[in-house]
């Protein structure tokens, strides 16, 4: 019998799906806007220095060019917390690709041509973009991203490691990675009657409005930001990017609507990236596999514009019981673009390193890698000592092993060949913290029997519209079709941004609460509703962000099978399976897509994605989608995602944990461990491209 679509977990179809498959969903550059101008930024051509002169005459002479904004004449901005947004404010060039001018024109063609005709002279300075573990400028920051302490230590990890019977001391390297959502960062801005209207591609239009109010010293009431459909973000649209600021400046200057759609090649320099991380892992264990010491030390880079520290050592504070531990971050400020969030910042590279090292330890011990993880299951969160609100990692590992036929695996490496192919399998665990932020929502019962739920949630492809409507229908006990939902605009009740896998929990809570109140109101009355209906509101401030006495995390396990071609070094994934314990799953259809999508990005991290900081020029060499290889269809096999039921009363009214990021966590390690199992060679630098594989195979 089919479940009703309102049942929690029911696979309801995406509410905006029909708009998307018919091409009717409008993204930030696609709203009809008569008289709209197009703009094209000019990126800096030196890695460090100052702009000494900008000659815009040739550009202004071109037909169609309306104006050129430069640091000399662009509107002045007030200070904001985000220095990456202080564009065209001074002559300083903090990294190659920083925008030094903006050409505004009647057409895209004229704007692009105009940008090519702007002549910029620089006083270049010596630059340094090369990250090393021993870089003299490196320092220990106060905090890593997310507010985590940079360093944590338990016991005497060095001594404990030195006296451990079995030791693994290894280094891993994760290159810079780029988010590259399919829709480049885009904003259309329009000033009219003293009001600013912005359509932007953002994970949180509320944040965009707040920052614009700050930068342009405006009352938030005078700004409306819409982000109705967003072509992906993966963290890079979690904060406003220069496109927003430039579009507003240009609209202010010209009095006309202006679209700034960043060219793909410009993204790596200005929308954040996953910072490269250098990992040193030291694991000491007793003969039974129990960890006696765990040291995870991370060195990463940041820019001179803003400090951002990828918190890659933090998952080691959550994962395994170890009597002694040290988890530490060190950061080197370089003349590089500013790093920022990319899907599972911290966990993605951190768990690659930790879970690869666990595999190496299992091999040293002669132990099954699943059993090794089970043997190190902690009773409480290792770093904080807090009890877990729920933790079913062992169940995920066991269920995954069962589904993957792990028991039939020959643990010896390089024992499975098919012609020139070496086949291997690998496992890795996953974790991601539960995050929630305060949000508001309203619910209204209308006389026609329908309901309207309003909340400024973002739907960046996660299906938030759909799942929030399900939560509302479930509470109201009405068919899903009778619930309308509005998201993606600052005209709606304020809500947190889509980041940190926090959306459903943060938004679902006030939706749940407003609907609960509405249901109570409706239950108390009889007769027809008044013309405007009945409305309720909810606000989770002080509760969603309250400290919990529990350690709250989702967990999972990834299993991979790879084939390594010994002739070409090409490594391809043949099977990939994830099992997750992530609270209550609220929509089976969209949740599966989230998990699978995360695994696909993890597959890319393992095999195809990598960016290089060009030492001579200071930028990322792989700046476009021909050279930065996000996985293509042919790279991705059938992928399985499963979950174990988890009933956790310490989360939110829905009992949900975030699911948007955990799929990428540990996937690269599972694939890397499989590559070792296939070849007998440890590859400790991502991605596992043919050059590295061949070098490893021939170097044996």
């Amino acid at each position, binding site marked *: 019998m089919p479940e009703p679509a309102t049942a929690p977990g029911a696979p309801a179809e995406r509410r905006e799906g029909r708009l998307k498959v018919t091409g009717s969903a409008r993204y930030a550059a696609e709203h009809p806007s008569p008289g709209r101008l197009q703009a094209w930024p000019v990126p800096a051509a030196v890695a460090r220095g100052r702009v000494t002169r900008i000659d815009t005459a040739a550009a202004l002479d071109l037909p169609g060019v309306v104006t050129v904004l430069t640091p000399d004449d662009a509107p002045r901005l007030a200070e904001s917390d985000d220095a990456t947004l202080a564009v065209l404010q001074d002559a300083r060039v903090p990294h190659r690709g920083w925008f030094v001018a903006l050409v505004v024109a009647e057409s895209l063609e004229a704007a692009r*041509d105009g940008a090519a005709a702007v002549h910029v002279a620089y006083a270049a300075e010596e630059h340094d973009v090369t990250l090393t573990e021993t870089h003299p400028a490196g320092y220990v920051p106060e905090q890593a991203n997310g507010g985590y302490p940079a360093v944590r230590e338990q016991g005497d990890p060095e001594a404990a490691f030195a006296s451990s019977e079995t030791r693994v001391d290894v280094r891993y390297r994760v290159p810079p990675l780029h988010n590259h959502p399919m829709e480049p960062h885009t904003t259309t801005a329009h000033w009219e009657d003293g009001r600013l209207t912005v359509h932007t591609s953002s994970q949180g239009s509320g944040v965009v409005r707040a920052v614009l109010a700050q930068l342009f010293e405006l009352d938030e009431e005078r700004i409306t930001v819409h982000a109705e459909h967003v072509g992906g973000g993966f963290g890079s649209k979690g904060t406003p990017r220069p496109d927003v600021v430039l579009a507003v400046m240009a609209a202010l200057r010209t009095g006309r609507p202006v679209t700034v759609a960043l060219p793909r090649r410009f993204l790596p320099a200005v929308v954040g990236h996953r910072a490269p991380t250098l990992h040193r892992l030291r694991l000491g264990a007793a003969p039974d596999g129990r960890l006696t010491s765990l040291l995870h030390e991370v060195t990463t880079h940041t820019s001179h514009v803003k400090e951002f520290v990828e918190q890659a050592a933090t998952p080691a504070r959550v994962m395994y019981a170890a009597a002694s531990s040290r988890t530490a971050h060190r950061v080197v400020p370089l003349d590089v673009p500013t790093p920022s969030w990319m899907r599972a910042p911290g966990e993605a590279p951190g768990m690659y390193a930790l879970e690869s090292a666990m595999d190496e330890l299992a091999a040293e011990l002669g132990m099954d890698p699943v059993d090794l993880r089970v043997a190190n299951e902690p009773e409480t969160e290792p770093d904080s000592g807090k009890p877990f609100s729920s933790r079913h990692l062992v169940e995920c590992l066991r269920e995954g092993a069962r589904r993957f036929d792990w028991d039939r695996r020959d643990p010896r490496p390089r024992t499975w060949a098919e012609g020139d192919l070496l086949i291997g399998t690998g496992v890795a665990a996953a974790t991601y913290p539960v995050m929630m932020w305060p949000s508001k929502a309203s619910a209204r019962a209308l006389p026609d029997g329908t309901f309207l739920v309003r909340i400024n949630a973002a739907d960046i492809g996660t299906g938030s519209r759909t799942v929030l409507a399900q939560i509302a229908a479930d509470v109201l006990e009405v068919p899903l079709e009778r619930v309308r939902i509005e998201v993606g605009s600052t005209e709606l009740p304020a809500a947190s941004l889509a980041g940190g896998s926090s959306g459903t929990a943060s938004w679902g809570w006030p939706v749940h609460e407003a609907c609960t109140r509405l249901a109570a109101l409706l239950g108390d009355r009889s007769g027809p509703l008044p013309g405007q209906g009945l409305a309720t509101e909810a606000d989770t401030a002080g509760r969603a962000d309250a400290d919990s006495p529990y350690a709250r995390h989702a967990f999972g396990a990834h299993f991979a099978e790879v084939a390594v071609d010994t*002739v070409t070094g090409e490594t391809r994934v043949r099977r990939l399976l994830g099992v997750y314990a992530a609270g209550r799953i609220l929509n089976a259809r969209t949740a599966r897509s989230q998990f699978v999508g995360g695994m696909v990005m993890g597959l890319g991290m393992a095999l195809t994605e990598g960016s290089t900081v060009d030492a001579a020029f200071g930028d990322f*060499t792989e700046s476009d989608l021909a050279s930065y290889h996000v996985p293509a269809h042919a790279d991705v096999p059938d992928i399985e995602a499963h979950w174990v039921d988890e009933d956790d009363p310490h989360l939110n009214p829905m009992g949900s944990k975030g699911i948007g990021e955990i799929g990428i966590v540990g996937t690269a390690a599972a694939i890397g461990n499989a590559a070792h199992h296939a070849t007998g060679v440890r590859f400790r630098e991502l991605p596992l491209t043919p050059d590295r594989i061949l070098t490893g195979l021939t170097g044996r």
Partner: protein
Amino acid sequence: MKPFAYVRPGSVEEATDAYASRPGARYLGGGTNLVDLMKLGVERPAALIDVSRLPLDAVEELPDGSVRVGATVRNSDLAAHPLVRDRYPALSQALLAGASGQLRNAATTGGNLLQRTRCPYFQDLSKPCNKREPGSGCGALEGVHRDHAVLGHSDHCVATHPSDMAVALAALDARVELHGPEGTRSVPAAGFHRLPGDHPERDTEIEPGELITAVVLPARPAGLPSAYRKARDRASYAFALASVAAVVEVTDGVVAYAGLAFGGVAHRPWRARRAEEALLGAAPTVAAFEHAVDLELTAARPLRDNAYKVPLARGLALDVLARLTASARA
């Protein structure tokens, strides 16, 4: 992209005349690379002469058994053509290993030959590149060059030619037909592209104003075993790290004919003449293949970060040669 004039000639002669009368003109085929480079500002033509609708879209067998491929035949149609699939499988396979379905539907035979390197320094106007701006230097020589040449490069340029198709044409002894102000001529595909030397700005032997009108594949009425294999960073839609095209004929237990070319390793498809000479008359054994391929690759001079291309090219060549001669060796 600066404004440009646009003309669509009705014949080859009109096309070459239009070129002659318009300084700064370029021929436009499918546009998959030219328009891309115009957007980047690497190409700045004053006029485009659209040759994509010229009546050069036929694949036909000539009386002598050779196969003539018109210059505007789209890559996807060429790859699917029964004459090509049956007689020149390496060419079909090479085409299908390149780009995407959409790009192959637009890209033409002539345009594919004339595509430019994907070297990132060539594509970035803010960086030195002797190919784009002679005398400005080579950013890749000491820069990021994992994808670059290991054979035949110079201090002026270490770029590779990106075409898969051209590698197969070189191995297959195809010829390129050109029509220009001086008349019509034909050059071997293997000699159509140049090594960089002191003039990396010149990719090919084509003279200004000359238009590719056709590619002619030599007569192989019965077909010969041939194949193409490519290694790349992702399973599809990526340029070659290295590739190989080979055609081998074994008669009476010895190699009677061999055509071997490497892609992704040099400024042009690298026809492996030394290896071919070594193979001729030899029994098709693994040892003979190793000897021949190693002989060819002694010329390799890897850069700091691309030494892997030598064993990669070697492995690809040995694999393809072994596969093509499997029945002869059985």
